[in-house]
Each structure stands twice: as C-alpha cells, then as structure tokens.
C-alpha cells in the first residue's frame, strides 16, 4: 500500500496519514469527500436562513445527508465488477417500477411520481438517474469505441424508454436530467462530432415536436422564460423575484438571514429550487463565487478520478456522474438567474427536500468505488 511508505517523522504527518489510512480503508477519496462536505455544510447554513430559521428543516436535511453518506460509504466499498454485472438487473427493475408508477403511483401536485410503500414513498425516477448511465456504460463496456450506428441505436432505446416513462408522469425536468446522464456516457465514449451535430438537429426537431405534446404549464414556463415581464404576477413572478433577490444582494450580500426577498417570502420556493437566489441575496456575489468554486472543485476532482480508472465501464460511468453534477448546478443556476427556463431542478446538495441528495451521494459512492478498485480491475 502506497500510504505506508510515506509514514514517518512529524506528528502532523502521522495524523494525516492516520486519516488517510481510514479513508483508504473505507475506499473514500479525501479531496472529493472534503469538497462534498463543504458544499453540504454551506447548504445547511443557507437552508437555516432560507427556511425561516426552521430547526426541523435542518434536522430533516441532516438526516437525509446522513442517509446519503451511508449510501456513499456502502457503495464505495462495492466491487465495481459486481456493480457492472448487476447493472442490467437494476436497470430492468427501475423500468418496471416506472411502469408501476405510471399505472398505480401516488398522485401529488398534479403529477404521478411516487410509489407508496406504506412506510416511505419512493421515486423510481431518482433511481434511474443512476441506472441509465450505468446501463449505457455497461452496454459500451465490451464494445469497441467510438460506438457505431447500431450501438447508438441500441443506446437510444435504452435511454429513451425510461425517459419517456418519466416524462409522462409528467416530470420533464427529471426526464431531461436522465437523458443528459445517459447522453454524457455516449459523448464520453467518443461520439463523433458530426454525429453530435446530427443529433442536435434531431433534438431541435424533437423540441418542436415535444412542444406540441407539452402540458399548458410546461409551455407557460418556456414562454415565461422568453419574456418574464409579460405576466409579472403570474408565471413570470418566480424569475423576476429571484433576479431581484440576486441583484439586490450586490457584491457582499445583505447578510445571513437579512435577505428581504427571501425572509419576507417574495422569493417563491426559497428553500428548494430557488435557494441559489437566497445565497445571492444574503451572501452576494462572493457567496455565489465560493459556492461555484466548491462545485467546480468537486466536479473537477471527479473528472480527474474518472480519467484514472482503467476499464470502459468505470471510466464512462464515473465521467458521466461527475459531469451530471455540473449539469444540475448549471441548469439550476441558469434558471434562477434567468439564463434558462424554469425547470424543477434543485441545486444539488443545497436545496431542501427530495431524495436527490441520497441519489447524488450514492452516485459519488459509486464513483469512489470505481476509482479505488482501479488496480484490481487492471490486474
């Protein structure tokens, strides 16, 4: 083991080495863990303010983080080969659950998204955020890269079936994220540029086609994105208020728990989808830059880890998981700042609620497992 060689001299070094040894034993990547921990801690501080100083919210979030951390620690110890072998079953199971959701799922907020297991409600679409990229990576693992047309066709089916099932719940936001996660695997696998261009054209056509199938509220969101001032008290209210919150925060912010937009509830969904605006209002530009820095560090570290893995499945999956985090951040921040339409994508690890925290940390657990076992895979 590499760490044994460096153990020597100073006490600090020994302590560090001790910590490193623990991390190593747990097959945890230290820098990634620290980065994620800082984001979560930052998130809890902001959430306390954004929830209107609700201790209950903090406790519930902390419990979810704990659950996610446990999932991460457990998954980090799983053998990647086992993970790869079980991928088709996971994927197939997820698809079955999605079908169950569509037929007998629990209806909430005008959409059918949950399966009610009595003790807890489970959102199978969250599972698919992991299962779809895993399935794509599994499919490409044995095949030569870059993938040819037949592979692309098969992959499209693998992605579009669960995406379609989620989209009809309807939950277009999550469906899009699942599609992105799967597509990232294909792109990382070396999809040719001209194919990408062709697909973009297809996507544009698809968007046009999709528009005709959209629900009214979804169309409204898109239109509102294009011109938020058109209906300031109606659909455009979210965007206008979040821009006011961020803009009025200035460089240094109004101070913790002093954001008038957030505290006086002008900002809707302040503790969930729009928590980015709360940070902007209370901690200003500096607060947001710090947050972006943490995210970029975590994503960057994750991509680095991905490049260090040695088989196709690990590489593609790890890369996709890393990039997915960035996509989440960018879509959320873009929506809150008015760069993108309002889609229900939470700010990863910071927004309150949902099982996405658990899914995300679980994903990083998988990523760590793939990285720490690279030698085993190689040998």
């Amino acid at each position, binding site marked *: 083991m590499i760490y044994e060689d460096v153990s020597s001299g100073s006490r600090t070094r020994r302590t560090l080495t001790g910590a490193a040894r623990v991390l190593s034993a747990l097959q945890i990547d230290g820098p990634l863990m620290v980065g994620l921990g800082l984001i979560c801690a930052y998130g809890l501080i902001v959430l306390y303010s954004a929830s209107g100083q609700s201790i209950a919210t903090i406790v519930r979030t902390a419990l979810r983080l704990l659950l996610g951390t446990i999932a991460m620690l457990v998954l980090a110890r799983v053998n990647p080969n086992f993970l790869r072998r079980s991928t088709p079953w996971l994927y197939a199971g997820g698809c079955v659950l999605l079908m169950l959701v569509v037929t007998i799922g629990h209806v909430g907020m005008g959409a059918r998204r949950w399966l009610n297991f009595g003790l807890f409600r489970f959102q199978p679409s969250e599972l698919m955020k992991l299962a779809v990229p895993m399935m794509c990576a599994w499919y490409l693992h044995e095949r030569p890269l870059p993938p040819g047309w037949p592979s692309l066709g098969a992959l499209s089916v693998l992605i579009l079936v669960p995406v379609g099932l989620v989209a009809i719940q309807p939950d277009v936001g999550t469906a899009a994220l699942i599609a992105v996660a799967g597509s990232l695997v294909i792109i*990382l696998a070396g999809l040719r540029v001209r194919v990408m261009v062709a697909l973009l054209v297809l996507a544009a056509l698809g968007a046009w086609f999709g528009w005709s199938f959209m629900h009214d509220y979804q169309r409204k969101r898109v239109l509102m994105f294009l011109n938020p001032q058109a209906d300031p008290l109606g659909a455009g209210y979210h965007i206008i208020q979040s821009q006011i919150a961020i803009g009025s925060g200035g460089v240094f912010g109004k*101070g*913790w*728990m002093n954001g008038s937009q957030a505290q*006086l509830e002008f900002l809707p969904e302040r503790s969930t989808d729009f928590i980015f605006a709360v940070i902007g209002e209370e901690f200003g530009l500096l607060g947001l830059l710090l947050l972006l820095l943490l995210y970029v560090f975590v994503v960057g570290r994750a991509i680095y880890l991905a490049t260090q893995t040695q088989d196709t499945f690990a590489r593609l999956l790890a890369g996709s998981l890393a990039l997915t985090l960035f996509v989440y951040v960018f879509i959320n921040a873009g929506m809150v700042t008015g760069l993108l339409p309002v889609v229900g994508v939470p700010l990863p690890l910071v927004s309150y609620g949902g099982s996405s925290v658990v899914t995300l940390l679980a994903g990083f657990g998988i990523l760590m497992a793939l990285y720490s076992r690279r030698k085993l895979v190689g040998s």
Partner: protein
Amino acid sequence: MPAVHIKDHWREQRLFDQRALICATIMAVATVGLIVRLFVLQVARHEYYAELSQGNRVRNEPIPAARGLILDRHGEVIAGNQPAYQLELVPEEVPDVQQTLARLVQFDLIRAEDVDELEGTIDSSRSFDSVPIRLRMSDEDIARFAVRRFEFPGLDIKTRQTRWYPNGELAVHALGYVGAISEQDLKHIDRAAYAGTSLIGKLGVESAYEGELHGTNGFREVLVNAQGRSVERQGAFVPNLRTRAPGAGEDLLLSIDLKVQRTAEAALTGHRGAVVALDPNNGDVIALVSLPGFDPTMFGRGITAGEYGVLNNDIDRPLFNRALRGTYPPGSTVKPAIALAGLSYHVVDPLAHRYCAGSFHLPGSSFIYREYHNEHHGAVDLDDAIARSCDVYFYGLANELGVDRLSTFMGPFGFGKPTGIDIGGEKAGILPSREWKAKAFSRPQDRVWFPGETVSLGIGQGYLTVTPIELAHYASILATRGKIWRPRVVAAYRDPRTGELHRIAPVSDGEVPGVTPEDWQRVVHGMIGVVTRGTAAAIGAHAAYSFAGKTGTAQVFTVSRTEKYNAKLVSERLRDHSWFIAFAPADQPRIALAVLEENGGAGASAAAPIARKVLDAYLLGADGKLKPQT
C-alpha cells in the same frame, strides 16, 4: 475501410481523456458565462434591483392630517374633529366568523340584515387586515361590547377621526359638510395627496376651502412580506424605516357671528326662508341662514339611502340652499333702486307729489295695475312713496324711465349676477332687459319687450328675480351709499401650530356710478321712513339705534306641477313671499341684511320682525344699548 471490432484500451483511454478535456472546457465556458450573468445582476444592475427589492418590502402607510377647524368670528368651534369608535374584526383571529356575527346580532351590535354583506366583505379581505364591521358606536354600544369582549377574540374597538359639528344644523348651508370621496371628487383631487383621507368637503366652506382645510398627509414606512402583511422584522435585522409627520390643515376663522346666526335661525324656525346679513363695510357675512337645514354629521359618518331619501323627498327641501340658490321676485325691496334711478336720470322731482288712486294703467291700454291690498295713498312724494311703498308711484316712475335705463342702472347693484361670495354655489337671479328677453325666449312674439313689463319691474315683479344673498348685497350697497364689497364667509386663516392669524383682505368691486350724495340721502331717508312711519313702522319702535329698511311682498305666480298636495297645504304655499331688507345704524351702517320668508305674506308682518331681532342681536350689547363701534 474494413470494420475493426477489436477493443483498443490505450486508444479508448486517449479518446476518453480527450472527451473529458472537451467537457471540462465546456464546463469552464459555462461557468464563466454564469459568472458574467451574476456580475450583470449583482454589480452592473445592482442598484436597479436593490430599489426593486426595497419597493417590495416597504409599504407607505399614510397618516391622515388633522382637518382644519372652522371657527366663528369669536373663535367658537363650528366644525371640529372627534374620534369615532368602530368595531373591527381581524378574520384570521376569529375562530368562527359566522357564529361571531350571529352573536353580535344577538347583542344588538350589528343589524341582522347587514350580516350577508359583512360576510362578503370579510371573505374578500386579507386575513390579517382589520375589517370595520360597525361604525359610530355609541357609548352604550361600547359598554355592551366591553363586558363581553372575552367572548369575541379577533374583535376590537378602534378609533378614527371624523368630522364633528357641535352645533348640528346651525349654519349648515354656509358651512357645507364632509362626505366620502366620490368618483366625481377623484377627478379633481391629487390622489397621492389624498391617500389615507376618507372624507372630503362637499358644498359651502368645507368644499370651497378644501385645499386649506385638508393639510398634508404624512406617511409611515412599514415592512411588509409578500402577502402584504406588515411584519416587525426580517431575520435578525431590524430595518431603518422613515416616517413623515402629517401637516394639519389650516383653521378657518369665519366672519359669521354664531350668536347672530342662532338668533336668525331661531327667529325663522318653523318657516321656510333665508336670512343673509353682511357687514356693508367689507362684505363679511355675519349670518347666512337657509331653513330648513339638515345635520351635516350624517354625511360624514356615511348617510344611508333611507336617510338621504327622507331629506331629498322632503317637501320643504332641506338640502336646498335658499340663501344662495333660491330665486324669488324681490317685490317692493327694489323701490329704493328705482327711486335712485329716477333721481340720477332726473326723471323725477323728489319733492313733486303724484296722486295714488289705487291703480295705474298705461296710456292706450285697458290693463289695470293695482295697488297691494287696493290701498289709496293719495298725494305722495318720493320719500312717502318709499316709506309707504306706493306701487302706483313706482309704476309710473318705471314707465318713465324705460327698461333700458332701469336695467343699466340696476346692474351695479348686483342684480342679475352672482355676488361672487367666496364659498361658491350661487345661482344668479334675473335682471331683465331687451337683450335678455331676446335671448331667453324662443318664439319671436315672446322676444319683444312690452312696455307693460317695465311697469311690473317698478315694483320688483315680472321677470326680475333675486336670491337672498343678492338682495343682502344690494342692501349693503344702499347702506354704504354705493360702495360694493364682495361677500365672504372666511375672514382669516390660522396656522394650527403657531396660532398665527392671516387675515384675508376684503375685495372691493368698485362703486355704483353716477349717484350724488344728496340722492343717496333722499332714498335712505325714505327707507328710514319705512321703519318709523311707513309699512314697517311697528318693528322700528323702541329701537336703540336708527335704521333703514324696506319691505317687499313677492307674489307666487305658479306652483310647480309636481307639488300635488292637499288644498290647505297648497293654499299655504300659494301665499306671497315676505321680504325685508335693512341696514343699521342708518348713518354709519355696521350691518345690512335681507330676510326672506317663503309664503310668509306681507313683508312687514313676517320678515321685518325677524330682521329686527337679527339687528338687535348684532348691534346691542348686554345692556340693551348700541355697542360702541370697534
């Protein structure tokens, strides 16, 4: 190219690294884009958004200014402000609104028929806003509620300022009243300046001096959340909010003397009519009475349709301002002016006697103009003709003068045009002339002036009409021997903070041209004769001062077709209107007045005694002697 289906791990690793690099680059570009966006929002447009957020969270709550007081010339309050108590309900603090309202009905605090409307109002209000459910609670209501307060969570008694008229109906037609701001009012006022104001002046002083009385409303900045609920603080931060104190409206000092006003109203009570008394030396209105009146307080607290209907349908028309808007033939009260015209145009020799046989007719006409009550005055000169109000004398004089000279001469006395009194709302009487008649009638045969119509003019009948204020104005011009002062009710403003008085200079409208002092004296002498030996000799008896007057009796020609009442009532309403004008002391007048009693009969019997009481009230001290001039 042959398809190679062999996995090349090294190549794939490179491919992946390449792709990862591209993705990282895209990521970096996206991040930079995001940061640029943040820079635009938080640095470049920070001030814009900061202002929007400030506007979001701060609401201006208006603080209404105290309305200025209205005082009489001695400083007695005519209109003031008083807190009124009202019951208010905060919907979110009331467990069961329906049951609460039912209980309030049970305790007689609200009326059962109002419940539905109140429920609607409560439903449409924001749950944290206080909704008034009962205005103007009496002391008894308050006591009844107070002992059961514990049964009514979410209900409380609140105070608000309302207008208070301590003397009730007294001087209401000069004062006007305040009422809820109407759509009509909104067109004239600056809405921003009236935010927080609920009442606005209607009619009279309250309306004409609205600008001075209203003052400037202040405001208080209140922190509000997105639902508009005012909150104490946000997070850990207590914000710095501004307040501007309201500036109370100016107090108005009227020229009206409430003692004289009360005397005049008391003297006229039970009758329909008007009294207007002026200070002939500056136009100050000493008393302005129109009876019947109404209680102005009703409008301030919100008059009900029923109450308004009663006022509006009253046969005596209490809402009608007779003093400023009632037009009546002046009757014989015009005779002094006709006499002055005759003297000025040298048409009449004041000492020459004319013979009165009780009737007059124009040469070549069979139409007979009769003396009032068919009296025979015998040989009368000008002085006698005024004192004894000889119609025959003035029929002839008017005929000799002709309509053109008459209308020209009478114009400066204020006939046919509004006096310009500062509280407005006046209606002008008619001073007929050839031009007037040509315009007033549509049929060609009616547009010609007939000589017979001039004859009627001589005794103040025919087309000539005046309002009581016009006639008082005319009396004051006679009193000052031709000096014209514009009547005014408000004499001074008083700053409510410093108590400083700003007197308003009286407005002169010039003088009556072309009348010699001797002619004035002749006519005034005739008017003194009226109250010493003439038609109103009875009321002049035992006066502590000399005074001049003139009676008038105006025939009621027609009764409006809408007034269909029983015979007794109609016959009462067909009686002549009784006029009296006077000024005193005759040599140095301090007061001039006009009294009208509708359907009072002869001027000497109805209006003249009222005039005497008003003159006494103004001129005499407690000792019953003429007060020294101040």
